[in-house]
């Protein structure tokens, strides 16, 4: 076996943080993506503008810069807002919260386009049928639209999740104790950079493979209503 100089346990802890960060950002991103798609498809112009500015900005700026802006910038913005309300103490948001915000925003911007495409590909008749059956907007969305959007959007969302998983490494730059950061710590004490970064790479690879398996299972499940003749 490879000698990890006792850092194996640390790396596994880091992997747990990486997975937590990825899943938390996924939830935030999915919600933002659905909201973004709804805004882009709505007939209210200002909502369309906001959604367009959001996706253009986030998709044109490097993810690392987004993480840095949220981590360093959000602090000063929060403090500025707080000082308006007469609160002058130092406010700091942790790397995990900053990471979830930054990666959630990024995922949401790309997911907006995926959801928009999926929403547009659902025939109008489905919508009308639901209304004809007397469903309210909420029930129509939950029972008729969402399951179909989910099926169509899944492959795209799966790819985005793989990107998200790799982007979590960026949050180590602002000090989150994920796989990457643990590897950095191990390197600084053992001087075996190649070994530990390679181990880190294979851990990410393993997470990628697991995600791919889960996504393909979900895709199969989402398609179960479609019979192939």
């Amino acid at each position, binding site marked *: 076996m490879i000698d990890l100089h006792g850092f194996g346990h640390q790396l596994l802890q880091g992997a747990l943080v990486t997975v937590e960060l990825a899943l938390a950002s996924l939830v935030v991103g999915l919600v933002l993506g659905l909201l973004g798609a709804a805004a882009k498809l709505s007939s209210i112009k200002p909502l369309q503008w906001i959604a367009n500015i959001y996706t*253009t*900005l986030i998709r*044109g*700026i*490097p*993810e*690392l*810069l987004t993480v*840095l*802006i949220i981590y*360093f*910038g959000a602090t*000063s*913005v929060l403090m500025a807002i707080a000082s308006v309300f007469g609160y002058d103490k130092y406010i700091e948001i942790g790397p995990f919260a900053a990471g979830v915000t930054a990666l959630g925003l990024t995922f949401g911007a790309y997911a907006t386009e995926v959801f928009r495409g999926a929403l547009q590909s659902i025939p109008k008749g489905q919508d009308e049928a639901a209304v004809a059956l007397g469903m309210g907007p909420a029930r129509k969305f939950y029972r008729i639209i969402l399951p179909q959007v989910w099926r169509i959007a899944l492959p795209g969302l799966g790819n985005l999740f*793989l990107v998200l998983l*790799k*982007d*979590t*490494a*960026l949050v*180590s*730059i602002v000090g989150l104790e994920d796989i*990457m950061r643990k*590897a950095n710590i191990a*390197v600084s004490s053992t*001087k*075996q*950079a*190649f*070994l530990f*970064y*390679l181990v*880190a*790479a*294979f851990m*990410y*690879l393993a997470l*990628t*493979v697991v995600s791919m398996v889960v996504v393909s299972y979900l895709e199969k499940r989402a398609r179960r209503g479609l019979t192939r003749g």
Partner: protein
Amino acid sequence: MDFSVIVEYFPRLLEGAWVSLQLVILSIVLGGALALPVALARISPVLWIRAVPFAYIFFFRGTPLLVQIFLVYYGASQFDAVRDSFLWPILREPFWCAIIAFTLNTSAYTAEIFRGAIQAIPQGEVEACKVVGMSKAQMYRRVLLPRAFGIVLPAYGNEIILMLKGSALASTITILDLTGMARTIIARTYTPMEIFLAAGVIYLAISIVIIAIFRQIEKRQNRYLGTVSIKVPNKG
């Protein structure tokens, strides 16, 4: 918000942007050159020729770019053999380490794009080439590769944008690219919001220029499609 900081340090940010551009252009050119043989090997009918690029692509697409940069920059110096070799003057320089990591990374993605494009060409065109009596090399040079080039363009444009965004990671190995320069300025002025936003706007501007260039090339490359590419809105 203090905009005078942005005005004062804008020239420095542009200097950084130029380094970012150099990184992107060099990696894209080298990565594209490397991607072609990888893509061709990836579609080889021989199993062991296919397996090597498969593993290569799988590794570079499945791991974070940050890990890859650290592997090249910090990892290579772990071995005395590397330190003593003729490669050391190159591997000692952060700039070239970034170029190596970016090139390997983008070539893996680009190879998949190339493969998809080559496989998207209708089988009939391959058969037509054979009927006319072209050799395999002629078929690739005259028909498959130019056709693939047209198909590849939109995805390739995206890949360049992704590379531009990935190039921000060069700042983690002390390179003063746009992000690195921004961080250096912020360390002096303590104005993270202003400088980071200015850097973001510059990145955005570069992306928009790249997108515009690719639209032009696409129009030119696919001009044989004639009026087909012009979208007619079907109202009524």
